[in-house]
């Protein structure tokens, strides 16, 4: 299983792929599984499951709040893998997005093995760059997993070449210089970054950070292979505390809007 197939399938339909993110264990483990499956049903092509972490330096207030709620609810790394298994069973490529220390603590090789056993497609690593990740690269290659590293507007061409050469699945382009969180306008840094990345690799390039509606998704889908949405999904659930059905309805409506957006470009 690799996320690349989902990008290729979308490209064959003449559109960008929609990549949706939620942290595991939010609002609780089963609620998270239900939410992620609703996103699959409503049109997400690839799923990213966040591993809640105590010190999420790349996340803005929205995802921080969800991760903290998940941790306070007692979510464990094993629950994250259980969530992967339940979502991957839909056939949709499912990756884990995680800060590095929880993987170190679990054991890099053991994590790779258990992720592969759960049907996971691979890892997205926001605070691990390929030059610091030889242990993960070896384990991922051993277990046939995707390695999704990030490129940023501040990355030199040399680093983009190095990073994309180490990626498998797709390349994650962070569209803004800043943390995660929905923004009212899309970034003018994203287009040039995608162009520089595509000059270095044949892998699909997904753009993330800041997308919250179908119109923004359509705008990014004009030049990127995938549109990555996280905080807006989290917000949809945060806005309906204690009312799971309303949360799922909001999540489904948002997914449908974004899925229409990536088809409109």
């Amino acid at each position, binding site marked *: 299983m690799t996320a690349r197939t989902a990008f290729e399938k979308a490209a064959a339909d003449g559109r960008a792929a929609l990549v949706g993110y939620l942290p595991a264990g939010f609002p609780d483990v089963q609620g998270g599984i239900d939410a992620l499956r609703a996103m699959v049903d409503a049109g997400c092509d690839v799923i990213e499951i966040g591993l809640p972490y105590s*010190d999420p*330096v790349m996340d803005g207030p929205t995802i921080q709040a969800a991760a903290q709620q998940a941790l306070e609810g007692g979510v464990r790394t094993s629950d994250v893998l259980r969530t992967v298994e339940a979502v991957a069973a839909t056939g949709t490529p499912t990756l884990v997005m995680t800060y590095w*220390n*929880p993987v*170190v*603590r*679990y054991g890099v090789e053991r994590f790779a093995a258990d992720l592969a056993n759960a049907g996971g497609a691979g890892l997205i690593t926001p605070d691990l*760059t390929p030059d610091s990740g030889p242990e993960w690269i070896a384990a991922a290659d051993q277990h046939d997993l995707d390695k999704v590293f*990030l490129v940023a507007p501040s990355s030199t061409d040399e*680093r983009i070449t190095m990073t994309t050469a180490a990626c498998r699945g797709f390349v994650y382009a962070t569209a803004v210089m800043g943390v995660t969180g929905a923004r009212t306008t899309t970034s003018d840094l994203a287009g040039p970054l995608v162009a520089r990345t595509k000059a270095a690799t044949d892998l699909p390039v997904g753009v993330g950070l800041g997308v919250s509606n179908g119109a923004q998704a359509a705008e990014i889908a004009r030049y990127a292979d995938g549109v990555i949405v996280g905080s807006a999904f989290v917000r949809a659930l945060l806005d309906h505390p204690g009312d799971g059905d309303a949360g799922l309805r909001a999540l489904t409506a948002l997914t449908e809007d974004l899925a229409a957006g990536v088809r409109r470009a």
Partner: protein
Amino acid sequence: MSTAPTRFDADERGWFGDPVTGFGGRFMPEALVAALDELTVAWHEAMADPAFVAEFEAILREYAGLPSPLYHAERLSQRLGARILLKREDLNHTGAHKIRNVLGQALLTRRMGKTRVIAETGAGQHGVASATAAAYFGLDCTVYMGSVDTRRQALNVARMNLLGATVVPVDSGSATLKDAINEALRDWVASVDHTAYLFGTAAGPHPFPSMVRDFTRGIGDEARAQCLEQYGVLPDVIAACVGGGSNAIGLFTAFLDDEAVAIYGFEAGGEGFDTGRHASTIHAGDPGVLHGARTYVLQDDDGQTVESHSISAGLDYPGVGPQHAHLAATGRATYLPATDAEAMDAMALLARTEGIIPAIESAHAVAGAVRLAEERPGQTILVNLSGRGDKDMETAMEYFGLNRTEAPR
């Protein structure tokens, strides 16, 4: 200032020891890598530039009041049965060793053409030092401070405001030092083109552990020369407190290749191990990645950072500088816990015998010296008195019950 290498330096990518099983490195978002690379180059160039080094030394001398004296604490020595020498960093401008680091980093910031600095602070000492350096160099300054700490340390918030800095209370996570670092990093990702991050300790991603060490190693360079000049010998043992570890690495570096000198770091033992409320990261933590470096981390079975505890806010950090992790792993230095109670006893002891009120952080090193003197009667023990205790009087009042006219026992 010395830039001489030791046998315990990092490689060019910031690894102390093997680049997988050793400590340090750089575990950071790609968005910050270019800035960290730029900083690494600027730091190397500055350290090799005699004009930069001369200006740094002149500012330390004329503005910060350095070199600090090495003082033979005779009454304390008599009491403990060993020769106790105190490196008086408590006499520095702003009251602690931290002024060395911030003046170095702020001078480098100006050289790099950046106009704004950000910093994290726990108790507020590094925040005050950063605000001071920013005022000195005319830089904008924003300090991130856990909202729990802004309430506990209102006086330091006022100091930073008076110095012209903006203090941003941080409510996320545990709302203490580690969360202030997280928030400063989030700011930096969005502001890195014009902003420098004045990191407050010898931890974090490469080049911070080595760069902060370079700016603080004057402590040990001075102390070593003073000891030889004043007493004609090297100390038998040196001691410092260790939170992130900047004062300790600042003292240790000059002595690392002096094999006859024993090196001790004293971590915050808090209320004791069995209580789980401590900050003894090397002694009780496990290897992991926190704030950009592989080091010892207080963490649970899933790698979630565990909250640390110490009566001294400056040692209350669940990680530690990676070079200390390396010195511990190689056996070159020994790290032991000193509890809240031992530190407070040492604070009172130093106040009564020498008329010096140490910072509670530094009192952990004094507490260590009390123990070392028992094991090493008659030996020369050099202690880094890294800061003064004015900021800690509220804690001392509460701990000792000082609102009365006679001295407590």
